[in-house]
């Protein structure tokens, strides 16, 4: 896909002979790959194979045992990426709108984007509901709203379609396509294809 958009030529992820471990167990051994603007990288592997650990390492949360992860074209790597993991990062007592407001402050997003993000993930009607009454799928949509809310070039998604219904998957697929068209980079750990054609597939086997 030819990328032309706000993130054009911006993000590039360069991973060199990356080795990751959980305790003493080696999960990822000598993994190398490059991914640039407009790419969609699918990470595949069985349960417990290290997909989550790989994504958390790319996010900078987990220190690599060996090797190097470089985010090129970004002064501060952690500010160039979004991470949507298994945990949605939501508080049951706060409303969907309160979350959007909090993230707008936390990530430095404009008020217009904050208000548009909930509509984009189809939660307009649920904006004033506390998260504890939302369904799993709706909570997932709210977590995905972060991606829209604060534009960042690299998206790291861990099983992003978990608990989403058919329309939710379509919405996610459209988000990813739009992000690629903008020149963004998406790395997603999945069991079933999300829809968009991956530009490369990584397989982790521990």
């Amino acid at each position, binding site marked *: 896909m030819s990328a032309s958009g706000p993130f054009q030529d911006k993000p590039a992820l360069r991973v060199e002979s990356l080795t990751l471990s959980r305790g003493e167990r080696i999960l990822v051994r000598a993994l190398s790959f490059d991914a640039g603007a407009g790419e969609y990288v699918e990470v595949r592997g069985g349960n417990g194979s290290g997909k989550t650990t790989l994504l958390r390492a790319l996010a900078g*949360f987990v220190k690599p045992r060996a090797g190097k992860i470089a985010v090129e074209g970004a002064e501060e790597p952690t*500010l160039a990426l979004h*991470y949507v*993991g298994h945990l949605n990062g*939501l*508080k049951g*007592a706060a409303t969907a709108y309160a979350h959007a407001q909090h993230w707008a402050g936390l990530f430095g997003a404009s008020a217009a984007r904050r208000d548009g993000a909930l509509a984009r993930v189809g939660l307009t009607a649920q904006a004033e509901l506390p998260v504890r009454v939302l369904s799993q799928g709706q909570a997932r949509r709210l977590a995905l709203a972060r991606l829209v809310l604060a534009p960042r070039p690299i998206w790291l998604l861990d099983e992003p379609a978990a608990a989403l219904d058919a329309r939710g998957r379509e919405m996610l697929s459209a988000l990813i396509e739009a992000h690629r068209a903008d020149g963004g980079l998406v790395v997603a750990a999945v069991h079933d294809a999300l829809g968009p054609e991956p530009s490369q597939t990584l397989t982790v086997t521990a």
Partner: protein
Amino acid sequence: MNAFVATFRRDVALMWAGGGALAPLGFFLGATMLVPLAMGPDRALLESAGPPLVWIAAALAVLATLERLFQADLEDGSLDQMMLSPAPLEALVLAKGAAMWCVIGLPLALAGAPAAIALQAPPSLVPAIVLSLALGTAAFIGVGLIGAAVTAGVKRGGVLIALIVLPFFAPPIIFGSAVAGGDEVGAALSILAGCALAALALGPIAAAAALRLQAE
């Protein structure tokens, strides 16, 4: 700065919504109001031994709220998002501590006035006791941030937090009790202010370092 304000506002809102703000206050008032009943009608005994007890009650009330401070953020994934903010994690930790002081520390300090009177403190000393509690709870929370961060990943880590932070609660308790007892009030208040500043300067730095390790 926006991220600091956003974190502060959210924590204040969540603590109010969850009723977490009232539990320590209830504990503090309950404990201090029971003391005169337990010690009996001997006014001289209460006058000499009572006022410092507000400090024991305040320390335990703050201690009881620390366990969930970062544990909840670690369990629901909010901590990951905090680490992706442009604001340093240290600033966000300080924001959480500041929110906790406004919702728990400040009400405790104000409740110190009726508590001190119930414990037969001289009325002229009550403003100094309130001020000392305001400073002391800030010191408790600053140190408490570290204990809460270190034990964020530990299930039922309350006992562990107590072991880690109680030794550091000693200086504020010693000088706070001096204020409540009426000895060298000015000097004790200055030292309390120093304790609070030191705890609030070092607490967020140490707590943020501990949280980064927890995120692995």
